[in-house]
């Protein structure tokens, strides 16, 4: 499948923040854990949303969820194969010598 989403690399801090939010932490809770201000949390997310071209948290979640899904190591780089195997619960479906 054609992925028009920019392939973004998350910084360490972004990754940590996303992981905390994904666990259900609030902005304030995540800020406290990371030892940064809630304002920094907002800024980090803002810049991430800009890079991904999305406008709100829901869309940010969608984009990150989608990226994670299509960039899992299980799914090889070939688009056709990604199509076929991404999301397959079984890594070894295919028959190949």
């Amino acid at each position, binding site marked *: 499948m054609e992925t028009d989403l920019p392939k973004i690399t998350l910084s360490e801090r972004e990754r940590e923040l996303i992981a905390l939010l994904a666990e259900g932490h609030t902005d304030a809770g995540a800020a406290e854990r990371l030892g940064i201000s809630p304002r920094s949390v907002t800024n980090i997310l803002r810049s991430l949303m800009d890079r*991904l071209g*999305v406008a709100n948290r829901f869309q940010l979640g969608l984009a990150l969820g989608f990226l994670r899904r299509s960039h899992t190591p299980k799914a090889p780089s070939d688009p056709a194969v990604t199509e076929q195997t991404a*999301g397959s619960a079984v890594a070894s479906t295919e028959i190949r010598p």
Partner: protein
Amino acid sequence: MTITVPAARAGRAATTLPIGAALPSLVRWGASADADLVYRTLVTFGPRTRRDLGLELAMPVRRIDDALAELRSAGAVTAGEAVRSRTWAAVPPDVVVAALRTRRLSLADERALAESHRRIVGDLRTRLGALALPLSAPVLGGLQDEQVRYLPTRHLTRARYAELLPGRQETLTINPEQAFDAESARTGAELDRRLIAQGTRMRVLGVPPADRDTLNPQERPHPAYRIRESLRVPLKLIVLDRAVALLPADPERIERGYLEIGHPGVVSALAELFERHWEVAADPYVGAVTPIVLTSREQALVDLLALGHTDVTAAGQLRISARSVTNTLRRLMDHLGVENRFQLGLALGAMNAARPPQLSTSEQDRT
């Protein structure tokens, strides 16, 4: 794994997790649902005896015992000193998950596989007098005898495999690989499409992926495949119509190519070997989580939100009240077990139920 954990550590496990805190499901790493529930209880409410657990969870003590035994062998719980009313305490989740992960990741044992491969080939050789070629150092490609052909590279193997496929009714495959390299995946996918197109029945016996998330809703593969999984597969093998078998010439050096075997006795012995392992292998879809299917309203709403609509404008588009929008999303969030819009987006994106705006017009667009 340490058996006695200082009280302070057990106490930390029991108290650091507030009720309802996010806690990874141990089922994802191969634990049973009972074990997960018991662990969850211990880690949230603190140490308990088996009897208390049984009462609180309304489960027979026998099931509690099984769950505790499982958890203990996985290093997820520790037993207290007292024998009569022994209490069980949870080990911190990060430690448990790390241990379970390692346990799963270590399953693909290449050396054991190579040994098993050699044993099988050796056995066939002595039993049937076939495969009498220097498998450890094959030099020349081509026919070794009438019924065995050596394909000296993977490239040639794939080419030959493609030649062998047209018109096949059945394939039996054992895949010890947990993942395929990119080139193999590319050729394989193309050939798989051809096999599906010609209606070949395919049975694939593989190893479970190293890190499968069994709670992630999954689509089933194409119905042409039947798939089973086993932690111990004997060798890499492809059998076509029980007439031709392909197996690596050297199990540890796949680049040395394959043997194509037409010897009827050997092929049928290999097919029997497949059947034996198939018999005891597990169907990965039994007990797996079925995909969450969105209702049409949920889907319509999610699609609008994915495009950047607000609750209010989405409500307008759908001709429902903003309150219905909130309620619909609330239900969906409960269904998916998430707390906020960001998590909802993550979950839906990961299950491909909706796409971010950049992708909403691509070929897979839902209409």
